């Protein structure tokens, strides 16, 4: 009983103290209210410019951090990020609706008569009160907004429209699609005028968030007018950046910035270094080619792999066995494949002269078509047009390992005297080369795929490493003009070595002094994406 009384007394005392403290509460609540109600400092110096060196439809926003940014010393540290806003005219809703209608007519939602029974069944379902889209036998086209929840009335009308469209003649549908497209394009043309009405008849749209400490945002729109992200060029755009706390209501708006227009550039200034390098290299090439044309003798060091080609063809002739030429897995537009075509020309010419058999299985149908023309021309040049058979070059498959299986099968059945692998190779390089070695063929390989070079070096008798593949045609032909271009390459390489040494020295200077003035040479070689 004594403990119960003591407990009751304690409860009374605490309750009384609680009431007693109530008058002092306003002081604390003022502090709390001041923390909630005092907005953070907004960002300063908001600037928006057209994104440089691009095709347009993009802008670049930069600003100074809010003094209350949590990444800064001092300040309240309550700003946890920034929200970027873009002013969009109400007219954009009209464009969105038109786009949705057009996409429904154009895309997968295009109503086709085959689905008519499903549409009618869905209409009956909706009329009986079913609105769960997953349960409907056919879902009509709905607006792009994912948050949209269709009502029974909306679904009923949409299904009636769909059924009407399904029953309509095809020509009516085509006309509807054409007129919707025209209306959409007309609305797009009107868009700059609507943006120019700022700030009347529009609203701010949230583009995205930037974490605290961030001072830049790239607004990249789509260039396709039929995309939902389309951002028009040559249009007055307005932006705003809000400094935001953990509570989304705790925010400070910046002054709006605008108008700014995005537009495409006619020259990418970030690629000037490449342009200068190409110009220098072109000058070298033209200079040495003209020297070669004038009859100047140019020395280029011999390449064992190239010299082995003629011997290998001779060997095949003596043995009465075929030569297998593999162009690799590259497309016709790959430089390695193009270089391979030029080598194939020389090989096919020799083969035609020696009347040896040539086998060229291909992976790409375009490569096959070109290779057939290359071999045909080589046979004609050799005066052996009658010996040409279109089946010398044939298509196998565009599946990597199925191609390998086919070529390996050819190697093991035909036992060619020589295998030539020139072009682009991937994981199949070693499988091909090892099978060729097992078949006892002399093998010559060349590729610009660095990862595959060691495999060819190991498994083949001769390997053209990297650029030697590109130089092979000049070596094989021995034409002075082509040799001149090789000389240009050598001089360009020397220039690169000099640049590398200068870069090395300047970076050592930077490490030793810490002065950023040493970085100018390195920055010279920075290339923009």
């Amino acid at each position, binding site marked *: 009983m004594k403990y119960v009384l003591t407990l009751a007394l304690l409860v009374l005392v605490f309750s009384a103290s609680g009431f007693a403290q109530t008058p002092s509460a306003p002081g604390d609540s003022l502090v709390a209210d001041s923390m909630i109600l005092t907005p953070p400092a907004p960002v300063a110096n908001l600037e928006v410019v057209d994104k440089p060196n691009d095709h347009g439809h993009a802008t670049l926003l930069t600003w100074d951090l809010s003094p209350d940014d949590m990444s800064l010393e001092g300040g309240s540290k309550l700003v946890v990020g920034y929200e970027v806003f873009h002013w969009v005219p109400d007219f954009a809703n009209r464009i969105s609706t038109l786009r949705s209608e057009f996409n429904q007519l154009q895309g997968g939602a295009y109503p086709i008569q085959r689905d008519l029974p499903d549409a009618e069944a869905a209409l009956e379902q909706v009329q009986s009160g079913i609105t769960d889209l997953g349960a409907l036998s056919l879902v009509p086209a709905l607006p792009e907004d994912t948050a949209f929840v269709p009502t029974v009335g909306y679904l009923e009308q949409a299904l009636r429209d769909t059924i009407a469209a399904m029953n309509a003649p095809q020509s009516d549908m085509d006309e509807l699609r054409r007129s919707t497209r025209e209306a959409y394009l007309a609305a797009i043309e009107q868009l700059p005028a609507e943006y120019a009405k700022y700030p009347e008849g529009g609203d701010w749209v949230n583009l995205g968030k930037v974490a605290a400490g961030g001072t830049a945002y790239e607004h990249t729109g789509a260039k396709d007018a039929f995309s939902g992200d389309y951002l028009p060029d040559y249009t007055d755009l307005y932006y705003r950046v809000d400094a935001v706390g953990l509570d989304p209501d705790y925010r400070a708006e910046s002054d709006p910035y605008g108008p700014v227009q995005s537009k495409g550039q006619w020259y990418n200034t970030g690629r000037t270094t490449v342009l200068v390098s190409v110009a220098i290299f*072109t000058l070298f090439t033209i200079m040495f080619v003209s020297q070669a044309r004038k009859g100047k003798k140019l020395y280029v060091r011999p390449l064992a792999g190239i010299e082995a080609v003629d011997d290998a063809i001779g060997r095949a002739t003596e043995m009465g066995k075929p030569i297998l030429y593999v162009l690799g897995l590259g497309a016709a537009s790959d430089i390695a494949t193009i270089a391979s075509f030029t080598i194939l020309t020389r090989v096919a010419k020799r083969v035609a002269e020696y009347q040896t058999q040539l086998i060229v299985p291909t992976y790409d149908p375009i490569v096959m078509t070109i290779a057939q023309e290359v071999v045909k021309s080589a046979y004609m040049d050799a005066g052996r047009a009658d010996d040409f058979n279109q089946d010398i070059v044939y298509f196998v498959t565009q599946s990597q390992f199925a191609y390998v*299986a086919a070529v390996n099968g050819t190697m093991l059945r035909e036992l060619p005297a020589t295998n030539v692998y020139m072009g682009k190779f991937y994981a199949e390089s070693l499988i091909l080369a090892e099978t060729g070695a097992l078949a006892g063929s002399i093998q010559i390989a060349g590729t610009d795929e660095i990862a595959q070079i060691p495999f060819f070096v190991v498994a083949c008798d001769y390997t053209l490493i990297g650029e030697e593949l590109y130089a092979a045609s000049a070596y094989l032909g021995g034409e002075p003009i082509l040799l001149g271009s090789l000389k240009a390459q050598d001089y360009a390489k020397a220039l690169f070595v000099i640049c590398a040494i200068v870069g090395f020295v300047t970076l050592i200077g930077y490490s030793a002094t810490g002065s950023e003035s040493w970085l100018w040479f390195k920055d010279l070689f920075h290339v923009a994406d």
Partner: protein
Amino acid sequence: MRRQLPFVLVFITGFFMIFQYFVPHEKSEFVYEFLLDWLTIIGAFALALGIWSLWRVSFDKIKFKKENWGYSVVTLFGLFAMIVFGFTAQVDGSWGVYFYTAEGLQNPLFRRFFDFILIPIQATMFSLLAFFIASAAYRAFRARSIIATLLLLAALIVMMRFNPFFGAWIETVANWLMNVPNLAAQRAIVIGLGLGMVATALKIILGVERGYMGQG
């Protein structure tokens, strides 16, 4: 003219490709994408030529009973079976031909041929690589000269780098081998490749190199 026209076309398109690299403007991109679309269109037509080539070569082997003609029968059976199964499907209980929808790919026979025959065969071919790497490594690492011995030692160190038995030093040495001499050699090859590519492209655009058209 018949021989000059291709070179004129190569010059114009090649020069445009250089031009568009430095010009990011939408109009330049439009022409670039237009040309790439052409590449896709040409590829589609070329595929038909490729299939025709495969058919002709295989059919001739069967017709004239050439050596190993049985393989050609399997090749043509595979080709036509996949085409037929890819275009036919059972939809709503009835079989039909579907040229314009993905329903053809839902054909159970098509899926089974693809999943249970083609993919395992490809995986088998790929797995051969493991055995070929072993035989190639054996051939490469035979210590027949001082340089070959150095290669063997370097390879051993790189292979053993994750083995805890040797301690941290082997990882340090292996990393040095990979990041200094190996990377230096790779970069030298890459620089050479870059220049070689530009030189080849220039030769082709300027019409100096004509071998790819069977001339030279």
